């Protein structure tokens, strides 16, 4: 196993898929000559050239629509949003076109396309650049939504997303690009979409976390183990849609307690959906009300202290675990 940053794992996945399938191409702002705004596409333009790695004008709606049409006509575009905040400009093409094309064409036209880029907060980039948008996209049938939290997951899930015949929203996290972990070296290493991963086994309380809150949940789990002798199980769904609710339910049947940690705002969030599904499937197994740790209901402020107060944190997750464990 090689130890890679999430950034390099994503880069490897892209490179391997560009080599494997000549219909795969990468398109987005600054993905080619600039090597990617966050360097995820570093070196790919030099290696694959103008046809496969394409710089676009700043025209999100336009190149997203172009990607949808190219996918309908047989290509497999990987569209990079410099950040998912800018995908909102393109959301008509993602939601009204990509997501519905197969259905409203009665199965005639597939749209095998990946929309990827960083989602959620970064470092004091304020209100318009700090949004976690997974709940919005997960609300639409026809889209898959993927959110990796480790280098291996990032690589294996991105390769599966590129090979998938559906539009996939692949959400990275800028704060996590430099995080390192082990990645299998097999060039055909993939992770199926829709399969959760138990990141830490435990018996007393389950935390369901995704993306940036996974490392937070793992740290919180270590701390409550040490301080309160509480054994926490951390589950990362990895794919938000389709959601592997079975793995979550199996964990709750063991621990009987659930905390959900997420970077998005709380109202109508993915966490709200998970809480509902748990109630629906495992109401009798819960020994305490479910707790959620989310970003506060305000646009993201700039000031460092306010930003930290807005976001989920290890301490907030610990407090929630203590609450569901009646500590």
């Amino acid at each position, binding site marked *: 196993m090689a130890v890679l940053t999430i950034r390099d794992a994503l880069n490897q996945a892209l490179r391997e898929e560009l080599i494997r399938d000549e*219909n795969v*191409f990468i398109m987005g702002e600054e993905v080619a000559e600039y090597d990617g705004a966050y360097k995820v596409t570093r070196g790919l333009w030099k290696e694959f050239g103008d*046809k496969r790695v394409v710089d*676009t*004008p700043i*025209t999100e*709606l*336009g*190149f*997203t*629509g*172009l*990607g*949808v*049409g*190219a*996918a*309908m*006509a*047989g*290509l497999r575009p990987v569209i990079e949003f410099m950040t998912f905040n800018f995908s909102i400009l393109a959301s*008509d*093409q993602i939601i*009204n*076109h990509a997501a519905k*094309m*197969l*259905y*409203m*064409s*009665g*199965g*005639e*036209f*597939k749209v*095998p396309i990946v929309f990827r880029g960083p989602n959620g907060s970064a470092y004091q980039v304020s209100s318009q650049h700090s949004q976690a948008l997974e709940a919005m996209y997960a609300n639409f*049938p*026809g889209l*898959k939504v993927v959110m990796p939290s480790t280098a291996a997951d990032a690589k294996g899930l991105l390769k599966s997303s590129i090979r998938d*015949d*559906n539009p996939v929203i692949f959400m990275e996290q800028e704060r996590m690009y430099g995080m390192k972990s082990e990645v299998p070296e097999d060039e055909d290493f993939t992770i199926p979409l829709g399969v959760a991963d138990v990141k830490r086994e435990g018996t007393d309380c389950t935390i369901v976390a995704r993306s940036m809150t996974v490392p937070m949940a793992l740290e919180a789990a270590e701390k409550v183990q040490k301080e309160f002798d509480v054994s926490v199980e951390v589950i990362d769904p990895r794919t938000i849609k389709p959601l592997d609710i079975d793995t979550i339910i199996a964990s709750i049947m063991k621990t009987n307690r659930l905390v959900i940690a997420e970077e998005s705002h709380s109202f109508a969030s993915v966490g709200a959906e998970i809480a509902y599904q748990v109630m629906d499937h495992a109401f009798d197994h819960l020994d305490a009300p479910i707790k959620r740790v989310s970003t506060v209901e305000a646009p993201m402020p700039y000031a460092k202290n306010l930003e930290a107060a807005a976001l989920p944190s290890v301490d907030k997750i610990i407090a929630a675990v203590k609450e569901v464990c009646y500590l």
Partner: protein
Amino acid sequence: MARTAATTGSKRSTSKPSAKKPAKAESNGNGRLAAVEMMNAEYQKRRKSQIEAIKKTDKKLLRDMLYQMVLGRIFEEKAAEVYRMGKIGGFCHLYIGQEAIAIGSMMALEPSDMVITSYRDHVQAMVKGITPEAVMAELYGKEGGCVKGKGGSMHMFSKEHEFYGGHGIVGGQIGVGTGMAYAAKYKESGQVTLCYFGEAAVNQGIFHESLNMAQLWKLPIIYICENNQYGMGTSQERAMSTRNIAKKAESYEMANEFVDGMDVMAVRDAALRAIKRAREESLPTLLEVRSYRYMGHSMSDPGNYRTREEIARYQERDPIVLFQDSLKTAKVFTDKDFEAIKQEAIDATKKAIEFAEESPYPSESELLSDVYA
């Protein structure tokens, strides 16, 4: 385009009658009546040479073109009739008056070329090869529809016929069409893409974003603006700072042409030039095809934003009448031939209705299929 007549109604009722009257006299007639006279004068100038050209054109092609126009007309009239009977639900946007655009341009294509259009898509779907039966059954929401009853009036598709759909968001298909052309260039398939949209779509950002990319990357696409002069109930001059849509292409250094959309041979000639440019030089073109929609925006449109005089004047230049007149003058066909063609279209429409009536509703198992591939 999911906008209801009720919305227009409420908007209209808020405007002051005193302010409305002069505005109506000024904008709702004169500009468009002047335009039709201008187009007619140009038409009269080229008519003689056009008739000579018709004499040299393949007779079977001419017959097919006329047949498709007549079929489009009769099919849509029948659709309106059965819509009023409650056989068709939802939105239903008819193409009556605009037939010369689809027929003139699409019949200049190779079968492998790609087409995408807006929600006003029944005639384009049939010209591309989807049967009238499959289109009518789709309007009925039946299993035998071209997309199994899942799309309805606005969403006809067929991969087999390279028909990339009817799309319901004004201008959305301009981005998708640009991508289809991108794929053709990427794969070096030699396919040309025709991308249709109404003039109201020109005000959407996607139009400008797409034209910029198409010229920047030299994509083999023809953008065909079907200028029927009204975006729902709002006339072009109430919505656009300039009348000249073709000229907008010049902002992107793109080839462009203004075309009389009531003259099917003029549309064909312009389309042939643009298709050649796309096929041989991999370059895009914007065609502004000035036309007129006889019916309302959709079946729920009362049409009280324009005068009878204006409609009547455009109908005098009906594309089928003009074409038949030229064909007769060129001595290619006689009235008897026209009758036979009309009967054929009536029969095909009747068959389509029978098929749609008899086709079962889609099985409920279809509800959750085709959500994911």
